[in-house]
C-alpha cells in the first residue's frame, strides 16, 4: 500500500496537472535550494570543528571543496527518494538547522579566534 506522501509516477494524462506540478516543484525546491543549504550547513559545521585543529584557511578550503560532493549526493538522493516527508525532514528542517546552526554557533560560543 503506497503511503500518502509517496511521489506517484505521473502518467501522461495528468503530467501537467496542478497536483503533479506541485509535487515536482516541491521536489525541485527541496533538492536545489534545500540541498544547497544542507550541504553548506553540514560543511560549515565541520569547517568550524576542523578550524580548532588546523589553520582556518585550510579547514575552510577543505570543507568548501567537499561541500560540492555533499551537495551532489544530496541532489541525487533528493530525486531518488520516494517519500516527500523524508525530503522535508532532511533537506528542509535538517538544512535549516545545519545552516542556521553554523551561522549562529560562533556568536553563541563567543570564543574569539586565536
Amino acid at each position: 500500500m503506497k503511503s500518502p506522501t509517496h511521489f506517484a509516477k505521473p502518467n501522461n494524462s495528468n503530467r501537467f496537472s496542478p497536483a503533479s506540478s506541485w509535487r515536482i516543484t516541491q521536489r525541485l525546491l527541496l533538492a536545489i535550494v534545500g540541498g544547497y543549504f544542507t550541504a553548506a550547513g553540514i560543511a560549515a559545521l565541520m569547517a568550524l570543528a576542523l578550524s580548532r585543529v588546523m589553520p582556518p584557511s585550510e579547514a575552510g578550503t577543505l570543507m568548501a571543496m567537499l561541500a560540492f560532493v555533499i551537495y551532489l549526493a544530496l541532489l541525487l538522493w533528493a530525486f531518488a527518494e520516494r517519500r516527500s516527508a523524508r525530503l522535508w525532514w532532511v533537506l528542509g528542517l535538517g538544512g535549516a538547522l545545519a545552516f542556521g546552526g553554523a551561522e549562529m554557533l560562533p556568536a553563541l560560543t563567543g570564543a574569539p579566534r586565536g
Partner: protein
Amino acid sequence: MGDTFRESMGWLHTWAGVVLGALLFAVFWTGTLSVFDKEIDRWMMPETRLAATDRLSWPPLLDTARELAPDAPFWSFFLPSERVPVVRIFYRNSAGDFTFRDIEPRTGALLPDAGTLAGTRFIFPFHYSLHLRWNDLGYWLVGLAGMATLVLLVSGVVIHRKIFMDFFTFRPDRKLPRSSLDLHNLTGVLALPFHFVMALSGLIIFIAIYFPAVISSAYDGDRAAFYKEAFGIYRTNTSGEPASQSLAPLDDMVAEASRRWNGEPPQLVRVWHPNDAEAYVEVRHSVKKSVSYKLDAVYFDGIMGAVLHEHSSGPVVSVQRFIAGLHFIQFEHWPLRWIYFVLGLSGCVMIATGYIYWLETRRKRHAAQGLPGVRIVEGLTVGSVSGIVIATLAFFVANRLLPFDTSFVGQDRAALEVWAFYLVWLVTFAHAWARPGRAWREQCWTIAGLAVLAVVLNAATTGDHLVRSLAHRHLWPVAGMDLLLLAGAAVALLIALRLARRCRAVHPSQNALKAAE
C-alpha cells in the same frame, strides 16, 4: 518521477538535460574555445602577432605605465610567455573602468589599443560568468550548470544499462535515434573522467563565491582574513604622501622572488600605489611549469626593495590550487592543450546528441498528439548549438570587418563585436523557431560559409594567409586558428549534406511535389 532508482535517475537525466542543456552547451563551447583563448587573441589582434621573447626591460615599461595611467591605484604587468609575446598591463583608467593595453616587452612601446576583447576578455569570461554581473548572477548560473553536469554524468551512468558492452559502439548507419544515442554514450562514457573533473574543478575554483558560509564558519564569521591566508592577497594602506624617490629596481625584486622559488620565474608583477611613499610590489609565481595554478607571491617595499611578505600555500590550499590548475590549463604543454580541446569538443557533441536523441524519440508522438514539446525544444537546440557557433563566427568576422576606430551610437569596436555576437545569436533562435525542419541544415551551411569567410578576411586584412603563417613560428597561432576554422567548415558542410540527404529520403513525396511545381 520513477519507482526505482534507475527510473528516477532516468527522469532526472532527461529533464535536467532538456532544461539546462542550452546553458550547458554555452559553457562547454566557450570553455573549449578558451583552451586556445590566447591564440584567438593573436588572430583577433594582429598587432600582437610578434615573436615570443623572454627579455624585457623594466624602465621603459614603467615609463609607459606612468604615461598611460599616472594616477592608477595599481599597475598589473602580465609578463610575456610563449603564447603571449607582449606585456599586458591592467589598470583602472581615469573613468574608473578596469582596462588593459599591450606593450612591446623590450622597448616598452605601447601597442595600439586592441579595439577588441577577443578570446581572453570576452570568450573566456563568458565561460565562467556569462558576462552577467548583476549580483553575480552569471557565476551562479554557471555554478548551476556545473552541478547539473555532475548530476547528469552520474545519472547517465546509472541509466546506461550496457555500459561495458557498448563501450566501443558507434553505429552511424542506423536510424537517427540509435546513432545519436550511440554517439551520446560514446562521448559521455569515454571522456567521463574529463567531464567530471572539469565540472568539479571549475566549481572548486570559486569556493569563495559558492560556499562563503563554509569559509566564514572556519573563521568564526569573519571571512576577510581568508583571502590573505589562503590566496595570499596582502594589502597595505597608502600613506597619502608622494614618494620621495623612484621605485627600487624591479629586476632585483624579480630575481629575489625567483631565487625563493628555486629559479622559477614570475608571471605577474603588480605595482601598488606607484606614486605613494608606501608603494609596494607584488611578484606572483609563474603558472606555466606546473599543473598547479600557484598563487605563491613575494611582496616588496616599493622604494627600499625589501621583502614585506611572502605567501605560499598550505597543504589543503595547495590541493585546491592543483585542482584549479587542472581546469585553468595555463601550463605549457601543447599535447595536453590539444587533448583538452578535443575532449571539450566531445563534451559539446555529448550535449548536442543528447538533444537530438530526445527530439527524435518524441517527434512522432508529439506531432500525433499535438504536443508543443518537440517544437519548442528543437528551436532551443538549434539556437543553442549551431546558433552559438554562428554567433562566435560573427564575432570573429566582425573583428575583421570593422575598422579599428569604429564608433556607432557611442559603442566602440570592442563593444560592437560583442553586440554582433548577441544579436546574431538571437537571430539564430528566431530562425530556428521560424523554420523547423530546415533550420539545422541552413545553420550548418551558415557555419561553413562564415568560417571560410573568417579565414579569407584574415588573409585579406592582415596578409597572414596560411602559407605565410605556417612558415613563421610566431604566426603558428594564426595558422592554427585558420586551420581549425576550415576544419569546422568542412564538418559543418558534411553535416549539412547528410541532413539534406536524410531529408530527401524521409520526404520523397514532398520533394516530388516540389519537382512537379
